[in-house]
């Protein structure tokens, strides 16, 4: 009894939804970042799973994209956290509800 | 005969596994892992006990005193006494501390240290966790150390703890770069991330006499020194024990720990030291290979542990000799000297490879390293930067 691709995709969907939940429902700026990281991780899981379940022989494209995605999300995390710090310095709060200078 | 002696532990494990030969696959896997873990723990906990007492005795020798000599013959049972003392001591947790994290921190630290020990080959066919990319595993898992230290510092809810943790993380981050980059030349030269392959690549002898350990190439020697120094920092050993400098911040991130948790921290620190030294032996000192062909009758694990002991002795020796460094000096050395030199080692290894791996390559890579070293020395004006500090207001 081995798990099918569907199981992996379902796990990925759940992880993605949890990430979306964190990004949408929490007020703290860092939670948005955490949520985004989780969504990216879910996407990576999909890449790897689809690579693994593709009929052989096939090039390791999924693995490559996962590697690049990890590198890019690392960069995103660094810049995002730096922005959180910069914004915090300016507003003296991390509550995203109060970041409303761009209100139309 | 010698091969039987050499493989005695491998045969022993195989014999133990034969007891569960009929069981399903996963049972055999788990049993095998358990045997490995037990063996590792047994060996390294013993080594830890031994080294803790030896360190005290050697330090005492260096400082012209006796050291522990009351418990057991030559004070050899001292660690047992210490262990009992630690176990029965009261386990104090600060009232404002985050209890769960406070408890988890030493556990994570020790777990990480033990995991890193798993990928090192201790003898021929004696790798506990043979994985494709063991070196990467070592560093990937090792990087969790920082998180554990941070957990300890943050959960204690104490400013000394926090400060100590910050210092520890800062210096670990700074020295992780030269540490990893110093490994790159070896990986490049061998073309593999598997420790066993790396050791095999060092098994030959030039002219039948000089072993082909990477430490005997210019880039290897330079990388070894960089790796060793960075390893000292990673394991928070003198002269880089700033995070727990007693005179400044009590005991750093371990301030609020007592009893067995404190002992666990200690254990994790020593295990980390073993792991880094073991990796140094694997990467640069030929692993379990004997230094000469005629000594091949001595079992491989003995050679490994002999080399490890030498390195550990150097650790202790350094502790007895050098004073603690200043934080800013440490950072300067890391970013301005160690990192460029580590990159130079990579380039020198490439030069060595493309110049034919012979005498010519040897000389060329030596030339590269010497040139960059001299240039860096002139550029950084080390004599001025590391001049004795003048205490203007202390006189």
């Amino acid at each position, binding site marked *: *009894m081995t798990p099918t691709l569907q199981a992996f995709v379902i796990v990925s969907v759940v992880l993605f939804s949890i990430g979306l939940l964190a990004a949408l429902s929490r007020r703290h700026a860092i939670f948005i970042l955490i949520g985004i990281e989780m969504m990216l991780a879910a996407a990576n899981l999909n890449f790897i799973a689809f690579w693994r379940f593709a009929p052989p022989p096939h090039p390791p494209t999924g693995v490559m994209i996962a590697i690049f995605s990890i590198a890019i999300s690392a960069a995103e995390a660094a810049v995002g*956290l730096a922005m959180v710090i910069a914004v915090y310095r300016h507003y003296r709060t991390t509550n995203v509800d109060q970041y409303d200078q761009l209100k139309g | 005969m010698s091969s039987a002696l050499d493989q005695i532990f491998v045969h022993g494990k195989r014999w133990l596994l034969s007891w569960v030969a009929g069981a399903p696959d996963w049972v055999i896997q788990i049993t095998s892992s358990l045997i490995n873990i037990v063996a590792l723990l047994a060996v390294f906990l013993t080594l830890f006990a031994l080294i803790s007492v030896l360190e005290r005795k050697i330090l005492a020798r260096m400082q012209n005193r006796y050291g522990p000599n009351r418990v057991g013959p030559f004070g050899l049972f001292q660690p047992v006494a210490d262990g009992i003392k630690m176990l029965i001591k009261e386990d104090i947790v600060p009232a404002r501390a985050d209890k769960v994290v406070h408890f988890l921190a030493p556990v994570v630290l020790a777990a990480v240290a033990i995991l890193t020990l798993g990928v090192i080959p201790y003898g021929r066919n004696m790798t506990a966790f043979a994985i494709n*990319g063991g070196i990467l595993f070592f560093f990937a898992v090792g990087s969790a150390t920082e998180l554990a230290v941070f957990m300890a510092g943050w959960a204690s809810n104490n400013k000394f703890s926090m400060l100590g943790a910050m210092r520890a993380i800062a210096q670990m981050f700074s020295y992780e770069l030269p540490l990893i980059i110093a490994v790159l030349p070896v990986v490049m030269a061998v073309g593999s991330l598997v420790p066993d392959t790396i050791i095999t690549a060092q098994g030959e002898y030039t002219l039948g006499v000089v072993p082909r350990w990477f430490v005997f190439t210019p880039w290897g020697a330079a990388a070894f020194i960089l790796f060793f120094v960075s390893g000292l920092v990673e394991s928070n050993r003198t002269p880089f024990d700033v995070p727990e400098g007693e005179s400044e911040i009590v005991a750093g991130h371990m301030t609020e720990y007592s009893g067995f948790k404190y002992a666990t921290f200690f254990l994790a620190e020593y295990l980390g030291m073993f792991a880094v030294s073991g990796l140094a032996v694997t990467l640069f000192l030929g692993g379990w290979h004997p230094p000469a062909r005629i000594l091949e009758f001595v079992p491989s694990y003995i050679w490994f542990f002999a080399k490890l002991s030498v390195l550990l002795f150097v650790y202790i020796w350094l502790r007895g000799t050098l004073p603690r460094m200043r934080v800013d000096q440490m950072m300067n050395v890391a970013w301005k000297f160690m990192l460029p030199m580590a990159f130079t080692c990579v380039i020198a290894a490439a030069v060595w490879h493309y110049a034919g791996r012979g005498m010519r390559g040897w000389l060329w890579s030596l030339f590269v390293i010497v040139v960059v070293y001299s240039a860096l020395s002139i550029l950084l004006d080390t004599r001025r930067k590391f001049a004795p500090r003048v205490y203007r207001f202390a006189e």
Partner: protein
Amino acid sequence: MNSITFIIISVFTLAGALAAATLPNLMHAAFCLVLALLGLASFFFLLGAEFVGLALVFIYIGAVAVLIVFTILLTRRDSKEHYAINWSGVLIALAVFAGLTWAVLKTQSLSVVPPQIRTLTVKQIGQTLMTGYVWPLQCVGLLLTAALIGALVLVMEERR
């Protein structure tokens, strides 16, 4: 690859992720994120992508997690106050979850078992990276450098 391992890892991962998304204490949430990512790395190991798993551990636990906890420390002033949930966000997340799950379950072609493949060695990955993917690799290098400098510039003390 068997179902028991899969279920254990799934539960571990999703529990970590849920905790990371909902725990009121930021620091705990960050540690739980680490747990979730560890679980994800285990998934990668399970799927035979050891290198990616190790890279994930290396980068996320060694670097990103530490960055996150540092940021939490630096913005600690109100890390525990206003623990409020935006319920409309929860609703949207649930709707997305439902929609995606429905779509996945509806797709028949996803019910396949893994084929037998040769293990992907680090050497192969390296060769692929250095041959077919050199250009993206260089771009990622540039991106990381830019991110490093950008992050530094962002957090530098403002000169008044």
